[in-house]
Every structure is written in structure tokens, then in C-alpha cells.
């Protein structure tokens, strides 16, 4: 069961490389949130009651509902164009995603031999998600896409923390606070305020301060 979920998660990363619409990335985020929720539920017996309730509630509320809703809301309010407008082609992005997978599984399998508590599939997918998030941030210019890249990276981190959750339950709840940081990042002021002062919400616009 868990393996199927992990593979679906991996597939969603591949899909994120070929899509051109912002809304479909949001959909990917929702799907990832639900997958992570189910993964957390599968871990029920490894955590105590309260921590489990907190983490499960957080994944479904923040990852699957609240943050995607915030993002859609921001896109609508600010009239951001719906294309992703990456600075690299889809082909390149898919190719590099494959390379990222290969690298992540290589690390996971190679190091998994030395430490028994690393499950290669889980670790590999999580690591690939972290790298994919960084890749999205680097390869895009839109600030809203940067945020989505950050979210994907954070889903990877959450997954990594689930992998070791049995040994140290409250590290998972710590990882949760990353989510809260992100929602503040979006909600508090930035996109709205920045789009009031800058014409297009694009990292090329953020170039007043430079040397």
C-alpha cells in the first residue's frame, strides 16, 4: 500500500515537469497533500495519539486545502497569467527530473546498505521531491511558481521526516511548522503587497537592489 502511494508521489513529480498551467501544479499539490495524509495514517501505530492527530490534521488542512486555496486565490486576485512560463523547455525539465530520480535512488540504495533504518523507495522519492522543488525555484521566474517549488520541496522534507517518525515522533511536528511558515509567507503580505508595488510578479522585476 505504502509503496503504491510512494510511486504515485513520484509520478506526480514527473507530471509537474511537463505541465504548463499553474492550476495543474496546484492540483498536483493537492494530490500530494492527500497522498501524504494517507501515508501519515498508515503510520498510526508508530506515534502516540495526540501527535498523530496533530500531524494528520495538519497535512489535510494545510497541505491539501488551505495553501492550495491561498495560491489559487492569489492567482485570481492579482490576474497572474495562467501559464507557468519556465525558462527551460519541458523536454529539458523532464530529462532533468529523470536525472534527479536516478541520483536520489542511487544515493538511497548506496547508503541504505550501511544504515538499516533507511527504506530506499521512501528515501529516494523524498529526496527527489526536495531536489525537484529546488529545480523549480531555479528554473522559473514567477514568484508564485517559486512558492510552489518551495511547497514541493517541503512535501519532500515532510516525507523524509515521516520516514524517521517512528524513532523520533516530534520531529514530524517540527516539520509541520515549516508549513506554517510557508502559509504565513503567502498569506501575511507578500504576493498581494508586492503585486501592488510591482507590475508583474516576476523575479526579473525584483532588481532595484543590486550591485
Amino acid at each position, binding site marked *: 500500500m505504502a509503496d503504491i502511494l510512494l510511486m504515485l508521489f513520484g509520478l506526480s513529480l514527473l507530471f509537474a515537469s511537463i505541465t504548463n498551467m499553474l492550476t495543474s501544479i496546484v492540483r498536483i499539490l493537492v494530490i500530494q497533500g492527500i497522498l501524504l495524509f494517507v501515508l501519515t495514517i498508515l503510520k498510526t501505530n508508530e506515534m502516540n495519539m495526540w501527535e498523530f492527530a496533530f500531524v494528520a490534521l495538519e497535512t489535510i488542512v494545510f497541505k491539501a486545502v488551505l495553501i492550495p486555496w491561498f495560491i489559487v486565490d492569489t492567482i485570481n486576485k492579482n490576474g497572474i497569467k495562467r501559464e507557468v512560463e519556465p525558462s527551460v523547455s519541458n523536454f529539458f525539465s523532464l530529462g532533468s527530473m529523470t536525472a534527479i530520480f536516478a541520483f536520489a535512488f542511487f544515493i538511497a540504495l548506496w547508503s541504505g546498505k550501511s544504515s538499516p533504518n533507511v527504506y530506499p523507495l521512501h528515501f529516494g522519492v523524498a529526496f527527489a521531491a526536495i531536489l525537484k522543488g*529546488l529545480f523549480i525555484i531555479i528554473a522559473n521566474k514567477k514568484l508564485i511558481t*517559486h512558492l510552489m517549488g518551495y511547497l514541493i520541496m517541503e512535501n519532500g522534507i515532510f516525507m523524509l521526516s515521516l520516514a524517521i517518525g517512528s524513532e523520533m515522533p516530534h520531529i514530524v511536528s517540527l516539520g509541520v511548522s515549516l508549513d506554517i511558515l510557508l502559509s504565513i*509567507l503567502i498569506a501575511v503580505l507578500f504576493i498581494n503587497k*508586492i503585486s501592488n508595488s510591482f507590475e508583474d510578479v516576476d523575479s526579473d522585476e525584483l532588481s532595484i537592489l543590486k550591485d
Partner: protein
Amino acid sequence: MLYLYIWIIPLLFSAIAWLKKSSRLNTAIIFSHSSLCLSASVALLLPGMGLATKLGIDSLSLWFLLITSILYFAVGLYSLQHKSNLTDRQSSIYAIAMMAFVASMGGAIVSKDLGLIWVFVETTTLASAMLISFEHHKQSLEAAWKYLFICSIGIALAFVGVLLLIIAMPESPSLVFDKIMQMKGSINPFWLKVSFVFMLIGFGTKVGLAPLHFWLPDAHSEAPAPVSALLSGALLNTALLPLIRMQGIMQANSMGHLANELFLLFGFASMFIAAVFIQKVKNYKRLLAYSSIENMGIILIAFGLGELAGKAGMIHAMGHSMIKAAFFLTSGSVYSIFGKKDYNLCSGLLSRCPIIGWLWLIAFMMIVGMPPSPLFVSEFNIVFALVGSGNLALMMLFVILLASIAYGLGKASLAITMGKSDQRSKLPISEYLAPTILLLSAMILPWLLIVYLKF
């Protein structure tokens, strides 16, 4: 319990600030909070009372706690009479964010649990992003966005480092440093190395090490002067502390040489980047920001060399924080006199406002390491250690970089202070007092602590 002590007063004061919303009251609140912080850390220092051991605060934490509280006190004093054009509501938000910022730095410094340190460092990001974006114009929004986003990525990578550290540990892992130390020998070396690299990149982003420093000049130059002083003097050290502790863990697991080499690499890279950009930058607050990058690099080099140079690193951290904070506070006064941030457009500070002019020059002399600045001793020790370990080429590089940075800073400082000016400006006394206190304590405090309290 300890964290309750740190947070209870800010929470109480925040409630008052939010209910009353008066800008006079808010400056008074910040000042009284800063005086309380200072007296608390002095009480921790007194050896007779043994408070520090009772609360489980070690000398490394105490050293950085003292730096932070002295800086905060000076900032509180400076803000007492500093003219600001904030509305009452804004000044309440400012006061609350400021107290939350300082309290989370305090928490990160005294904590010995890596997980908690991580949480507190994350909170400092949020609180200080509020402070940076305070002037609400295009530049400060841009600076705050870059700061928040780059540091969030950094902090996320540091979290990956923490997770990998847990993977590296044998059964019943723990994130408390003392317990990690007890596990030495049984930690998986491969994962420990990877985890150290992740943490170095993650927390290093926050320290402002090159090439992860892009947020730093923007944030420091756009924030209000008191905030820049705290950012550069206190926040950078706070993020440095977990790295120093991790270096200790690497050494205990006989991988110290890897940690040291990485420290030296990042240290020299930071100095190099600073040396290049200082020649080019025209905005004097950005200049000071680049000098912070340089000094964090020097501190990292000192810890990378270890032993006596490690002690020099501590002295350098203290000296740099005080002098740079004094420099930033003075730059706030310079900005309020000239209203410009380009140093070519400002001249004649010495004749226009002699005290600020002299403070500016003295701060410059001390930051480039002229005696009686403590930076002289620490840099001397580093050169000594480099020669002692036979790294003559590195020693040459270090000295050349220092010299070119001193040239760049000197050009700007002299351009501002020299020249004729017919106008006269008067500033409130607290704006003179705060930098003076900082410069004096930079000269005296390190020796006092080392000689009398045996750090």
C-alpha cells in the same frame, strides 16, 4: 522553563503595546525590555550566584547572549529619541516584532536542543522580515521578500540536515548536543558528513556566507538602522552558534578535518566576495553589510583553524558585533543628516556634526582592526595560526583581502567625513550615547571576560 522566562516579558509587553498603541509608550517598552535583557545576562555572568549552571547555560551560549543583550540595550537607548515617522499602530507592530525577534534569538542561543534551535531560528526569520519591510516602499518590500524566501530555503535545508543527523544516529536518537556527544564513535560517519554539509549550507545562508549571501546586503541596507544593527550584530551570530556546536560534534567523531576545511573554504569565499564588492558599492549601508559578510568569514576561518585561533574567533565575534552595530547606528544618524545613501553625495560630516563624524571615523578604524580594537588581536592570532600551520599562501591571501577591504571602507568613510559644509546639524544625545557605549564595550569587555571570568 527557561524559555518561559525568555518569552513571558515580551508577551506581556506585547499585550500592553497592542492595547495602548502609543508610540511614546512603545519606545519605553522596547527600552525597558532591553534593560531587563541586559540585567538578566549580567546576572547570569556573576560567578557567585551560579545561575548559569543552574539553568544549564554553558559559557559559549553565555558569551553570545551577552553580545545580543548589550546590542539590544544600545538599540533600545538609540530608539528612545530617534525620530521616526511611524503611526501609533505601526509603532506597536514594530515593538512587538522587535521583542519577538530578540526573544527568539535568545531562545536559539541558550537552547541546546538542535530541534528547538531550528524552530527559534525560523521564528527570527519571520519576526525580522516584518522589521525589514517596515518602511513599505518598493525597495524594502523587495529586500524583505528576498530575505524571507532565501532564508526559508536555507532553513528548510538545515532541517534536512537535522533529519539526516537522526538517521546517522544509532537507536534512541536525540537532538540534545550533550547526548549527541555521548554517542561519539557510534554515529554513522557517512550520514554525519552529509548532515553537516546540509546544516552548513542551511544555517550558513542565515549567517550570510558567500555564495549564499545574496539577501544580506539588501536586507541590511533597507532595514531601519536599529534593525540593521541587530541583524548584523546579533542574528548572524545566532545562526553561527549551531554550526560551531556541530563542528564540535564532527571533531568528537574524528571528522574534524573535514569540518575545518569546509569552514576555511566558506570563510575565504566570503572574504573574497566582500573584498570584490566593497570596491564597487556606493551605498554606505550596503558597504557595511559587505563588511559583515567579510567578518563572518573571518570568524569561520578562526574556528576552522581551531585551538588558540578558535578563541580569537570568539573575540572577533564579540568585537565585530559591537563595532558593526555602532557603525550601523551611526549610519542611521548620517542618513538622517544627509537623507542620502550614496556616499559620493555626502560630505563634510566632521564639520557638520563633529561627534557623529568622529564616531564614524573611530568605528571605521576599529572595524579594520586598528588597535585598541579587539579585531586586531583576533586577526593577529589568525595570521599567527596560519603561519604556525605552514599555510603561507593562505596567510598572504588573508592579509591581501583584509587590506583591500580596509581600502574600500576607508575610501567611503573619508569621503563622508571630510570636506566642507556650512550647515550644522544637532541630534538628540541618545544617538551619540548608544554607539559610544558599544565602541567602549568592544574595547574593554572581551578582556574583562577573559581575564576575570576565565572564559
